[in-house]
């Protein structure tokens, strides 16, 4: 019964025979798998395994040279429904410490995918900004400059920016790099809550041991797709990096 229900789940991302190379250096080869609505997928692998490249191909940031990628059934080249997508980039590559911007201004950027030209963000949007900040527990920081916040706080602000457009799927690229362990725990718990509210999550990380505790599915990359399956299957495949079933995983199984 459980299997049948899973078969009926809507595929939100479909990858087929995806390949990518930087010059002669092949970084991705024959990647085929799909992500279903409601999944919390950990896209894992060692440094240089092609995780970030695959994420950028899925987001249309790199041109696809071979294979096919579909977002919500639409080929990536003609996909335009960007409001359905939330993206939280790697912290280290994102922030210019002197960039003159308040937290509210950063979160408001996320509204642009739902605006048409000429894009205007006014007082009518204040409620949405406050709500997004509350979701990530940062409502008191709206008027602070983004550069004044700690790494963990900045990542929460980027999640708020991604959430404000009410996306169906949230992509996070190594979001906890350089963030202390306590902050990481509360960060992953926040992602778990968002997933339980119905947002599909794709989390890219090289920290295999840590994130398998939280995710419901795992895709392990190392140029090729070495493993793809649910938490239980991953435990059988790689017991060393398997954690006990998390609350998140149990809830997912309960939902079928």
């Amino acid at each position: 019964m459980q299997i049948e229900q899973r078969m009926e789940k809507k595929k939100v991302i479909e990858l087929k025979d995806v390949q990518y190379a930087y010059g002669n250096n092949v970084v991705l080869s024959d990647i085929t798998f799909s992500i279903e609505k409601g999944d919390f997928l950990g896209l894992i692998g060692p440094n240089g395994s092609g995780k970030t490249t695959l994420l950028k191909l899925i987001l249309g940031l790199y041109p696809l040279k071979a294979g096919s990628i579909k977002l919500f059934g639409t080929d990536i080249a003609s996909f335009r429904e960007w409001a359905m997508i939330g993206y939280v980039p790697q912290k280290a590559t994102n922030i210019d410490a002197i960039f003159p911007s308040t937290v509210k201004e950063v979160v408001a950027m996320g509204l642009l995918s739902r605006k048409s030209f000429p894009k205007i963000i006014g007082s009518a949007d204040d409620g949405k900004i406050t709500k997004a900040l509350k979701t990530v527990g940062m409502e008191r920081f709206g008027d602070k400059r983004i550069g004044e916040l700690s790494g963990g706080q900045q990542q929460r602000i980027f999640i708020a920016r991604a959430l404000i457009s009410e996306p169906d799927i949230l992509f996070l690229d190594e979001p906890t790099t350089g963030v202390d362990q306590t902050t990481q725990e509360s960060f992953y718990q926040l992602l778990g809550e968002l997933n339980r509210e119905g947002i599909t999550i794709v989390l890219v990380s090289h920290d295999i041991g840590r994130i398998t505790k939280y995710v419901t599915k795992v895709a392990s990359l190392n140029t090729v797709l070495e493993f793809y399956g649910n938490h239980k299957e991953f435990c059988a495949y790689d017991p060393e990096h398997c954690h006990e079933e998390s609350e998140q995983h149990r809830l997912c199984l309960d939902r079928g």
Partner: protein
Amino acid sequence: MIEILSYGFMQKAFVTGIVTATACSLLGVFLVLRRYALMGDGLAHISFGGVALGILFNFMPYTSALLFSILGALGILKLKEKTLVHSDTAIAIISYTSLGIGIFIASIAGGFNVDLLSYLFGSILAIQTSEVAVSVALALIVIAVISLFYHDLFYMAFDEESAKTSGIKTGMLNSLLVVLTAITVVSAMRVVGLLLASALIVLPAASALQYNTSFKKTLLISAATSVFSVVTGLVLAYYYDYAVSGTIILLNAGLFLVALVVNKVRAR
């Protein structure tokens, strides 16, 4: 002060100076944050070739300068995208080529060096009504386009990849940004001259960024800094017979030092 405003040439200078300074300072914030600070300098060199051509064939140098500047700006982008040339090298290649064209034309034509110098160093107090109209129109176009694309330009300046995943056409916006820079440089060439047009773009923005505030306030501070320096520069030049362009830029440099000190004091 009222006496100054009673003169037609000063009225023209104030109007042109204030509108152009506003356009330069707003655009400057985006360029400095995108690490394109010297794009204006390169495009000013490129415009020089256009000005020389305009003077040689006896048509309004604004037209040829604008044509050279816009084509040069797009050429720099293409050179960077399609070849193994870094952006600063691309700016150097195209701007020096155009500068060479300008000097070559000036040397073979002869006789218009004085005209050429007025474009190099600026001559806002001698600006003609038709030039006021062109300069102000160009600057207003720049201000209008920045206002229309404000949010997208802001997001792209902050984080280009994320902006792209929000459906923002970053390739088009990058082209728009360099074309706006080309237009801005030409609008400022009679105010402070081609040699210093880039300073009017970079210095007010650099000053405003020292105040560590919101993006909107940064734009306002940049514009206020720029307009203050132009107005004060014109007044000082009128009373003390200083060179206008040099005075404006020195005032901007002074305001940058003030901003540095204010930032240091606040940080303590």
